[in-house]
C-alpha cells in the first residue's frame, strides 16, 4: 500500500471492493472488525433515516428535503475517519455525516422542518458547521477555520464537503486556492453524485475534478465513492497528511444520487430510469455488507439487528420531528445582532404586539 494516491488511467477511481463486494485491493484499512461493523451500522441507519425523511416530507412534516440515497458510503466512510476535534463544513446533503458526528437528528431536521435556518444544533460543540445552501460558500469558511485552528497551534483538521456542481462556483476556486497557497490543514471532499439538480457532471465541467488539485499545488485523488473502505482509506490518509502539516488534499468520491435532487424535484424530466437502475446495482450498502459477511466480520444476525435498530431510530426521530413546535415569534428578532439597534427593538414590539 503506497502512501501516494493511486489513480487509474485517467478516470478509474481507487477501489478496494468491486461492486459485487469482492476485494480488488488491500481491504486492511486499519479498522478493527468492530469498527467495520460500525460502518455498516451507520450506513443502514442513515439510509433508513433518509427514507423516513422523504416520507415525513410527503406527509407535510418536513419542507423540501434533499435526500442522499446512494451516497451513504461516501458520507459515512469519510466522516468515520475524522478525529474528535476535526471540524466539518457541510452542504445541505450531509445528514449521514451529521449522524456520524453525533449531531442530534431531530435538531438537524429543524432545518428541513422549516423551524430554523442554519444550525439549530451547536456547531462548536458538535464540530459540524451550519447547513449551507448557497453553493460552495461553506468552502471559504472552512479555509478560514483551518487557518484559525493552525494559528492556535491545534492539530485538528478542517473537512469541507461539496458536490460536483459546486466546483463550478468561484467560491470553490477561491477556497481551494487559499488552501493551497496557505497549505491549510484541510480536506476538500467532493461527492460527485453525477448530477447538480438536472445538470449532469459531464456538462458541469469538461475536466476531472480531482485533477484540479494539481493546479492548486496539492494532491488530488479520485475514489470509488460507493466503496466505503476506499473512501475511508483515502480520507484517513488526507487527514493524516493535513495533520502532519503537509497541507490539503482534494478527494473526488464518485457516487450517485439515486433519488431526485430533492422532494421538490422530478428527476424523470431529465434522466433515464435505466441509469438509476444501473446505479442501484452498484449499491454501496449491499457491496460492503456482502464483503463484511464473506470476510466473517459480521453475520446475518448482526445485519438484522442493524436494520431493527435503524427502524427504531427512524421512529424515534419521526416522533421528535413531529413534536417540534414552531419557534417562539421573538426568535425572529433575538439573534440578528449581539447588540441590536433601538429601531429593531421597536419593530420587535410592533410585530409581537
Amino acid at each position, binding site marked *: 500500500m503506497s502512501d501516494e494516491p493511486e489513480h487509474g488511467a485517467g478516470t478509474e477511481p481507487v477501489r478496494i471492493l468491486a461492486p459485487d463486494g469482492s476485494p480488488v485491493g488491500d481491504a486492511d484499512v486499519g479498522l478493527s472488525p468492530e469498527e467495520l461493523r460500525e460502518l455498516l451500522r451507520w450506513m443502514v441507519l442513515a439510509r433508513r433515516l433518509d427514507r423516513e425523511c422523504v416520507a415525513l416530507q410527503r406527509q407535510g412534516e418536513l419542507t423540501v428535503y434533499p435526500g442522499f440515497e446512494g451516497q451513504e458510503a461516501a458520507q459515512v466512510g469519510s466522516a468515520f475517519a475524522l478525529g474528535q476535534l476535526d*471540524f466539518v*463544513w457541510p452542504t445541505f446533503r450531509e445528514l449521514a455525516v451529521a449522524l456520524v458526528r453525533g449531531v442530534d437528528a431531530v435538531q438537524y431536521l429543524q432545518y428541513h422542518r422549516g423551524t*430554523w*435556518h*442554519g*444550525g*439549530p444544533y*451547536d*456547531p*462548536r460543540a458538535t464540530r459540524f*458547521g*451550519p447547513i449551507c445552501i*448557497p453553493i460552495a*460558500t461553506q*468552502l*471559504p*469558511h*472552512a*479555509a*478560514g*477555520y*483551518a*487557518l*484559525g*485552528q493552525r*494559528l*492556535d497551534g491545534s492539530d485538528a483538521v*478542517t473537512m469541507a464537503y461539496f458536490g460536483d456542481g459546486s466546483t463550478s462556483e*468561484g*467560491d470553490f476556486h*477561491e*477556497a481551494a*486556492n*487559499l488552501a493551497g*497557497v496557505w497549505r491549510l490543514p484541510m480536506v476538500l471532499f467532493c461527492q460527485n453524485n453525477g448530477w447538480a439538480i438536472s445538470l449532469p457532471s459531464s456538462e458541469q465541467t469538461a475536466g476531472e475534478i480531482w485533477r484540479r488539485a494539481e493546479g492548486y499545488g496539492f494532491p488530488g485523488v479520485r475514489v470509488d465513492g460507493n466503496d466505503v473502505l476506499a473512501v475511508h482509506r483515502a480520507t484517513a490518509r488526507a487527514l493524516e497528511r493535513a495533520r502532519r502539516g503537509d497541507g490539503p488534499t482534494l478527494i473526488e468520491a464518485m457516487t450517485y444520487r439515486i433519488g431526485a435532487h430533492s422532494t421538490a424535484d422530478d428527476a424523470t424530466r431529465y434522466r433515464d430510469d435505466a441509469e438509476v437502475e444501473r446505479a442501484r446495482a452498484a449499491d454501496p450498502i449491499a457491496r460492503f455488507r456482502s464483503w463484511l459477511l464473506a470476510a466473517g466480520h459480521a453475520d446475518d444476525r448482526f445485519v438484522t439487528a442493524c436494520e431493527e435498530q435503524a427502524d427504531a431510530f427512524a421512529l424515534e426521530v419521526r416522533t421528535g420531528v413531529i413534536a417540534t413546535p414552531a419557534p417562539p415569534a421573538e*426568535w425572529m428578532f*433575538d*439573534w*440578528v*445582532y*449581539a*447588540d441590536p*439597534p*433601538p*429601531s*429593531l427593538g421597536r419593530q420587535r414590539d410592533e410585530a409581537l404586539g
Partner: protein
Amino acid sequence: MTEWTMSGALNRALYDALAEDPRVLVFGEDVGRSGGVFRVTDGLQAEYGEARVFDTPISEAGIAGAAVGLCFAGWRPVVEMQFDAFSYPAMEQVVDHVAKMRMRVRGRVDMSITLRIPAFGGIKGKEHHGESPETYYAHTAGLKVVAPSSALDAYRLLRQAIADPDPVIVLEPKARYWSKESGELASDGPGIGNARVLRDGENVTLMAWGAMVARVLDSAAILADEAISARVVDLRSLSPLDDAVLERCARETGRVVVVHEAPRSVGLGAEVAARIMELAFDHLQAPVARVTGWDTPYPPASLEQLYLPSVERICDAARKVVAY
C-alpha cells in the same frame, strides 16, 4: 496636540487594536508588505508579524468567507476590500453569511468582523473606484455600517467597529484619507448608532456622511453669511441610524436637507426622509430635500464634480427649504 491624517488615524486604530487584543487579525490584498494601497495598514506587519497581518490572494469572497470561518475559531478578523466596487465579489458571503450567521447559529458565534472598504468618489478615480455602496449594506439585516468624515472620528469608529460583537462595514471616504485633524485619538465618545452635531443652527439641518460632511460644513458657512443658520449633522452611523438625533433636529429646525454621493433613488437619503416623517411629521415646515449623486453610473474624472453634490447645490436646496 498631534495632527492626524485620516489614513494615519486609521492606521493607528489598527495598530492599537492589534496591541490590545491578541485575537485581532488584519488581512486583505496588499495589506502586508506594501501596507495597503492607501497606506492604512502601513507598518503593521513589521510590528505584529505575518501571522496576524497578512496578504491574501485577490480573492474577495475568499477573504470575507475566511473571516466567517475565523470567527468560528474564535478570532476577530479585520479585513480590507481594496476598493468599493471590488467588495462586490464578496457580496454573497457578506449578505448570506457575515450578516446572518449569528442568527443561524442562535447567537452561539458572534460575527465580530470588521470589513474596511475605501469608498465614495472625488479622487478622479478610474471607473469602479468611486462607488457609494452604503445602501447595499445598510439594507442587509445583521450588518452595521459606518462612514467617518474626519481623522479623529475615523479612529474612534474603527476602534469601536473592531470591538463590536456584530459585523461592521467601515466605509472610508477615499477623498478624505489625506485630510488632517488635530487632537488626541480616543475610542470613547459617540458610539456606533450615534450621529454627531458638528455645527449648531436653527433654520435648517444639513445631514451628510463621509466626504460630503466637509462640503456641508462649507455650505453652512456660506449660508450663515445669508443669515441662514444651518445645523450640520454627521450621521456617521448609517446602520443603525440615530433616530433620536433625526427626530430632535427635525423638530428643532423644522427643515432638513440630506446630502449623499450615492444615486438619489432608493439612496439612504430616502430612508432618512421617511424616518423624519415618521418621527416628526407635525414639526416639519417643508418637505425633506435630497441633494445627491444622479441616478447614473459614477462618471469619469472629468465629470465627477458635476455628479457629486456641490456646495452650490447644497446651498440652493437649503435656501429653497428655508423659503418654503
